[in-house]
């Protein structure tokens, strides 16, 4: 643990913008303050405007935030499959601008991962070599996502999971080897150890949900888990770095 407490962390799940559901400060200054305090070298973030209102506007705002923070914050682009028109163009534009991955929010935007539009999008992203993250909080969704991404070669990361659907997620992950899992929803005792025992340490990625959630509520369970220092380093740094740099 002593070794991993000093390594520079890479976080796959952070937020910037205005949070409409509670009075929580998601300014870039707050996020970077948390990053400095807990030795986070890089954070992948989405802009709330892109998630909750207009992806095009929000993705533009994410670029500005990233520029103002000199490489500390890496933006993830998002599109909303409910808005069919211009999806492919938006994806291509963001790829040209240098976005290295996408995020999807079916729960927050009220659509289903088995939707035909999302399947088309996933195939399109795969053709462009763009990995993506997708929320998977409900029973049945991991199976649907597995079917969508089964033939793809890009890495896909499940976020926002819960103990209730971990058994299903692990079953799907054993079949679909490009599926990865964020640590954020793994909150029960032994969860991290269980995932590593089932699918190995190379497919677990640290995500905090900060600043919406307390950063330490995700970091401490990982640092205090029974995983080896090598496994913790993979989860905290190397796995996400490999995905982003691929």
């Amino acid at each position, binding site marked *: 643990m002593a070794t991993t407490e000093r390594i520079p962390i890479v976080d796959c799940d952070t937020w910037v913008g205005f949070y409409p559901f509670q*009075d929580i400060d998601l300014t870039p200054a707050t996020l970077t303050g948390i990053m400095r305090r807990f030795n986070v070298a890089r954070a992948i973030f989405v802009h709330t405007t892109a998630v909750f209102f207009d992806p095009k506007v929000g993705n533009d705002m994410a670029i500005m935030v990233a520029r103002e923070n000199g490489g500390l914050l890496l933006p993830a682009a998002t599109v909303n499959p409910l808005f069919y028109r211009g999806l492919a163009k938006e994806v291509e534009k963001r790829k040209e601008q240098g976005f290295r991955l996408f995020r999807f929010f079916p729960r927050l935007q009220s659509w289903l991962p088995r939707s035909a539009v999302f399947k088309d999008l996933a195939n399109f992203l795969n053709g462009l070599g763009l990995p993506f993250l997708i929320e998977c909080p409900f029973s049945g969704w991991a199976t649907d996502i597995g079917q969508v991404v089964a033939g793809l070669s890009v890495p896909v990361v499940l976020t926002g999971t819960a103990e209730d659907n971990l058994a299903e997620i692990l079953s799907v992950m054993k079949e679909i080897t490009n599926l990865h899992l964020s640590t954020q929803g793994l909150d029960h005792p032994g969860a991290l150890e269980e995932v590593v025992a089932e699918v190995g340490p190379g497919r677990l990625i640290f995500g905090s949900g900060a600043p919406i959630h*307390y*950063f330490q*509520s*995700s970091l*401490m369970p990982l640092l205090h888990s029974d995983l080896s220092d090598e496994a913790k380093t993979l989860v905290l740094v190397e796995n996400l770095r490999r995905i982003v740099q691929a």
Partner: protein
Amino acid sequence: MVDAFGEWGWQTLRAGDESEWQLLEKCAQRYGVSHYCLASAEAMRGDLIKGNERLAQVTRTNSLVKGYVVVNPNHLDESAGEMKKYLSEGQFIGIAIPPPRLSHPLGSWRTAEVVKMARRYDVPLLTFLETEKDAEGLLSLVRTFSGLRALAVLLRGCDWWVAFRILSESPNVATIVTGLLTERGVIEQGVALLGDRRVLFGSGMTKVHISRALGMILEADITDRQRQLILEGNARSWLSL
């Protein structure tokens, strides 16, 4: 450190390598927990009688564990019997009403009937808030039954800022912050709106790992004195430990 809320029974469900007791004992040593105050997960979700009995077996043999006796507003007679059976034992320190979605809203007739019976025992009532409406129900209960003291565990989905505003109107309610709700600001706002004597630490063990709630409290923007109150002093006072 005193853990004001956890549930007994989750680890057994998972059939993990470590037993429920081994896990609690390991964490107690690692984090310096002097008492776990637990309610039976089985009594809240399944068999009221068997669940309370299984927890009682643990509290009788391990001084580390204190119990909340679970009541069920759908079974008023049995609930009365369970309170009588366990609240004479020093190892049981409170009464737990299951979350509203598992039983009844806090403002319902059935819940009020249980609270009427619970008053004579002079122990705090452990409640769960799933929405801010539940905070209104709890406030109504403590206003109706004078002298009633209540602890409120906020669950995911609850608008905690509104809940704190509502609960701030009665000095007889405290909140327990746990790893079940990790939104940033919940601790600071709890302290700001309820005062630093009315926020307690609850691990949520063994449903969630103790380090989740502990990490929140260590990160929160509060004074060291307030942190100490949350981690120990407030629980000792509210639970008479």
